């Protein structure tokens, strides 16, 4: 029977299939952990006297609760928050005790967990991957089945390298056509979420297909899969092709020699078979998309940048009306108001959605030789130390610095504002991250999600700007 990409990966990892009484037992190839969602899982192991079954299929990094401030004279990134220090040293201790490799703060391979995996060549087609982090969906860009789990489940995987899972349904999102200049992968995914809603993908694994997806680079595909969870989907996947294989080739953990040839042969069998069916399908046309921006407090509240803030009165459902009204009040926006021209206090370029080298290149290209608008704080936070190094080798940091932006150490930073990189109450930010929830980037802070290009445009003009008017 013809199978989808998801079905092939799922079936290949069944230790025990689902029954009426019990969920499936799914084998996990790669488990990524970080400091925030793992400590209580290690406590569980200790309480039960359990070992980590496969430390060599586990990798830890520090990213969420780490400062992005400059290094001291000894090259060390100082951690001043005592709680953060305790959490980071707890991870260090846990990794040492259980034999798990750790990319510690400031070391050469450290960075955001979803940037590090692909860049090290650990993320590969056909794998099952989990992490105590909802944006694990990022790794699906390679044709891996990758999804976020809770801390109890982190404990399950540490102890057994398996997970109990009920089988999700399949959802194909086909994106046809060609993107117009100034419109990016971020705009595709924001448009998708605006279409299906923040709960539209719940219970599904999405496969992104179509000409527009095929044309994307791996980094752009990661941007798309990253935000699958913002549509509620458990995971997002893209079938591996030449683009995927070229990206993985030669990376530190990629298979080598004959193992490489065997892996490529296996990966070639993964794409969805002709005639396989999905539980749900929608189609979008990339050529009609404009740069997107969010106006509200969830990622589904996005519109083409040229449009105006919607009116709660136009909604029939009382619950939805109340929710939108509450959102707009939080955002300080008036129904019918145009988005273009709205003032911005902060621009954040970073996060596992858009902090890779190609994102930084795009932003730098627009900002080269220009200056940040007066009064606007612009933070550029590379996704990893490797991205930082590459950007510096290309001189991108000089472009940002001479424009008047901050060039910081790698980490999650203002994406979740856990490390003190926060908006002040009532500040407006254009952010390349993935969540515009109330207070996400700092209590009372107000976030407009957009692409790196749109963010760079706002940095230069100080207001929400259609980047297409700035492209030569």
């Amino acid at each position: 029977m013809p199978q989808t990409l998801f079905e092939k990966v799922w079936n290949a990892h069944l230790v025990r299939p689902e029954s009426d009484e019990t969920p499936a037992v799914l084998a996990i190839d790669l488990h990524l952990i970080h400091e925030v969602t793992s400590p209580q899982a290690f406590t569980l192991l200790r309480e039960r006297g359990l070992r980590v079954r496969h430390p060599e299929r586990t990798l830890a990094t520090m990213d969420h609760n780490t400062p992005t401030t400059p290094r001291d004279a000894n090259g060390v990134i100082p951690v001043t928050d005592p709680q953060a220090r305790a959490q980071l040293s707890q991870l260090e201790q846990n990794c040492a005790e259980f034999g798990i490799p750790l990319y510690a703060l400031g070391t050469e391979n450290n960075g955001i967990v979803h940037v590090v995996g692909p860049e090290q060549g650990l993320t590969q087609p056909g794998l099952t991957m989990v992490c105590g982090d909802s944006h694990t969906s990022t790794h699906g860009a390679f044709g891996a089945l990758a999804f976020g789990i809770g801390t109890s489940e982190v404990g399950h995987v540490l102890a057994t390298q398996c997970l109990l899972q009920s089988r999700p349904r399949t959802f194909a999102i086909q994106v046809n056509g060609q993107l117009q200049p100034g419109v990016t992968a971020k705009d595709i995914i924001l448009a998708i979420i605006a279409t299906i809603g923040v709960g539209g993908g719940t219970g599904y694994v999405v496969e992104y297909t179509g000409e527009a997806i095929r044309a994307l680079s791996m980094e752009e595909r990661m941007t798309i899969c990253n935000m699958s969870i913002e549509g509620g989907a458990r995971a997002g996947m893209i079938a591996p092709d030449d683009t995927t294989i070229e990206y993985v080739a030669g990376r530190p953990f990629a298979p080598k020699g004959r193992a490489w040839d065997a892996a490529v042969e296996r990966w070639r069998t993964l794409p969805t078979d002709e005639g396989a069916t999905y539980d749900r399908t929608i189609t979008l046309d990339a050529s009609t998309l404009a740069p997107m921006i969010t106006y509200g407090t969830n990622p589904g509240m996005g519109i083409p940048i040229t449009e105006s803030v919607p009116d709660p009165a136009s909604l029939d459902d009382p619950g939805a009306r109340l929710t939108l009204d509450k959102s707009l009040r939080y955002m300080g926006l008036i129904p019918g108001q145009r988005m273009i021209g709205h003032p911005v206090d902060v621009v954040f370029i970073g996060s596992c959605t858009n902090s890779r080298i190609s994102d930084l290149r795009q932003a730098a290209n627009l900002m080269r030789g220009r200056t940040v608008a007066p009064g606007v704080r612009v933070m550029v936070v590379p996704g990893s130390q490797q991205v930082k190094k590459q950007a510096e080798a290309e001189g991108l940091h000089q472009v940002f610095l001479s424009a008047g932006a901050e060039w910081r150490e790698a980490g999650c930073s203002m994406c979740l504002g856990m490390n003190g990189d926060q908006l002040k109450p009532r500040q407006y930010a254009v952010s390349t991250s993935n969540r515009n929830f109330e207070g996400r980037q700092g209590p009372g802070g107000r976030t407009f999600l957009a692409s790196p290009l749109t963010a760079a445009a706002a940095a230069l003009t100080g207001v929400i700007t259609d980047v297409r008017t700035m492209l030569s």
Partner: protein
Amino acid sequence: MEPITTFTAKAIALPIDNIDTDQIIPARFLKATDKQGMGDALFADWRFDAAGNPRPDFVLNHPEAAGAEVLVAGHNFGCGSSREHAPWALRGHGFKAVISTYFADIFRNNALKNGLLPVTVDAETYRQLVSLCEEGMGTTVTIDLTSLILTLNEGNRQVAFPIDSFARYCLLNGIDQLGFLLQQEEAIAAYEAEHPALVQTIA
């Protein structure tokens, strides 16, 4: 874990759709390495102003919210981050169940592992619950995990609710899912014998 069978409790309503886990517990409260005190951070930015004073208009700060063990909340509750701190905070505050028309995936999974029941109801039951809560300063409901029936004690309504059958079995018997997984050792070992590691993090 304590077995859960049936309980009757006061419900209060927070009728907002898409309540995300950043609202349930903001990121700055995730710095702990244990589960203690999470209940104090529940809905922190909705409950308290910047100076830490309770906001009188927020439902958890109303006098009638005291002792409530069931939260009635809008569509797609628990979307966003995978943080299990969200159910820990709800449990820590004393909630035993959340009733909504829809739950986000990871939240539902996390809740079930912490003795917090995600009870999904139809839109009409939800609306009735919200108006009962609003009229009566809270309302009493009975949640029976044995029969999978939710009773609106003041609303003359009984509805069935679905719950994952394995999670229900674990909750009814007070056993945790890790125990079940550990019992699969033979099957896991057999699988691993046939499937060598595809990737290794230690060279």
